[in-house]
């Protein structure tokens, strides 16, 4: 890929989606390089993302546009442009937005969930802010978290896989770029006693959708969202997990 003058490329792979970011500011390039170190790849042919400090227009008619903190994201089939960006945190937020759009077309999505590895499988704990995702991740002494805030799921030929992401709570960065088969997805409910019950695909879809990162206004993306989340709800075991805020909840998991 041709590199624009004055830009420094950073290639990453998140959820096996290759992305190449082109920075105009060295300081932002260095910060992003540190943040995404665990997800960097030597291959520089990822979907190109051009970042510039100059503000750009928001194409109000485009469903693939998004604005945040004065920065704008514009996406077309060839590239993404992030303009007016000065902070690594804004880069991080807009990268989540962009990835959520790209993943929907590749049978995947980002989910507000913590993912913990145990015995080679991924246990996914989903919930809104305050539901206990970070708590669950921290209460898993014999498990290794893949994420404590934003999880990534993709359907593949051999089934659904949970991928590590660099998107951790409080804008911390993760560095475990691994993928694992999914043991189950648990909707978190804090309670006095631990209890787990399996829920139907329709209940699973109802629990899943509010936790999926989705920013698009296009009918095509909405259709893709419903299609892939319904497929996930039908394919994977879903549970409602009432849990105490200690590690004992692991004992009730199937």
């Amino acid at each position, binding site marked *: 890929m041709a590199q624009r003058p004055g830009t420094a490329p950073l290639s990453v792979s998140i959820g096996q989606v290759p992305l190449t970011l082109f920075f105009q500011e060295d300081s932002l390039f260095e910060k992003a390089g540190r943040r995404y170190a665990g997800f960097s790849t030597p291959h520089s042919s990822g979907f190109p993302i051009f970042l510039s400090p100059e503000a750009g227009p928001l194409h109000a008619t485009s469903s693939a546009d998004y604005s945040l903190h004065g920065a704008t994201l514009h996406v077309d089939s060839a590239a993404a442009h992030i303009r007016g960006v000065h902070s690594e945190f804004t880069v991080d937020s807009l990268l989540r937005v962009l990835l959520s759009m790209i993943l929907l077309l590749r049978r995947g999505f980002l989910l507000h969930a913590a993912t913990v590895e145990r015995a080679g499988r991924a246990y996914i704990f989903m919930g809104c802010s305050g539901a206990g995702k970070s708590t669950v991740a921290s209460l898993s002494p014999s498990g290794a978290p893949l994420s404590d805030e934003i999880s990534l799921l993709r359907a593949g030929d051999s089934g659904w896989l949970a991928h590590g992401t660099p998107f951790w709570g409080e804008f911390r960065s993760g560095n475990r770029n691994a993928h694992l088969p999914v043991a189950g997805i648990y909707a978190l409910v804090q309670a006095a006693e631990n209890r787990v019950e399996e829920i*139907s*695909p329709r209940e699973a879809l109802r629990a899943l959708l509010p936790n999926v990162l*989705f920013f698009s206004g296009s*009918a095509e993306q*909405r259709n893709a969202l*419903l299609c892939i989340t319904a497929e996930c*709800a*039908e394919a994977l075991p879903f549970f409602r997990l009432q849990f105490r805020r200690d590690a004992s909840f692991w004992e009730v998991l199937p």
Partner: protein
Amino acid sequence: MSAPQPAVAPVRPVQNPLAAWREIEGVVVIISPEDSVLHELNPTASFIWKHSTGERTAEEIARLLAEEFEVDFPTAVADTCELLQELQRRNLLQITAAEVRHG
């Protein structure tokens, strides 16, 4: 003498093309275009939704509903009209005037 049939406005309901929907466990779930909220329909409403393709009038759908769920026609008409209005209010459905067919 048979009981008078309820009057149904000559309209054709059409699903909003911007609404995403899918059948899961035998019922229809729809994501609304404005706010991406999930709407779940019951079996009767799912039946009416699936026939709201612009091909049939509300009265024709009500007749199919009466046959399928073995309810009397006035009840089917009431259910159909109520649901169509609700779906239209949520912008999940558009209702167009049906052409009067002479034959």
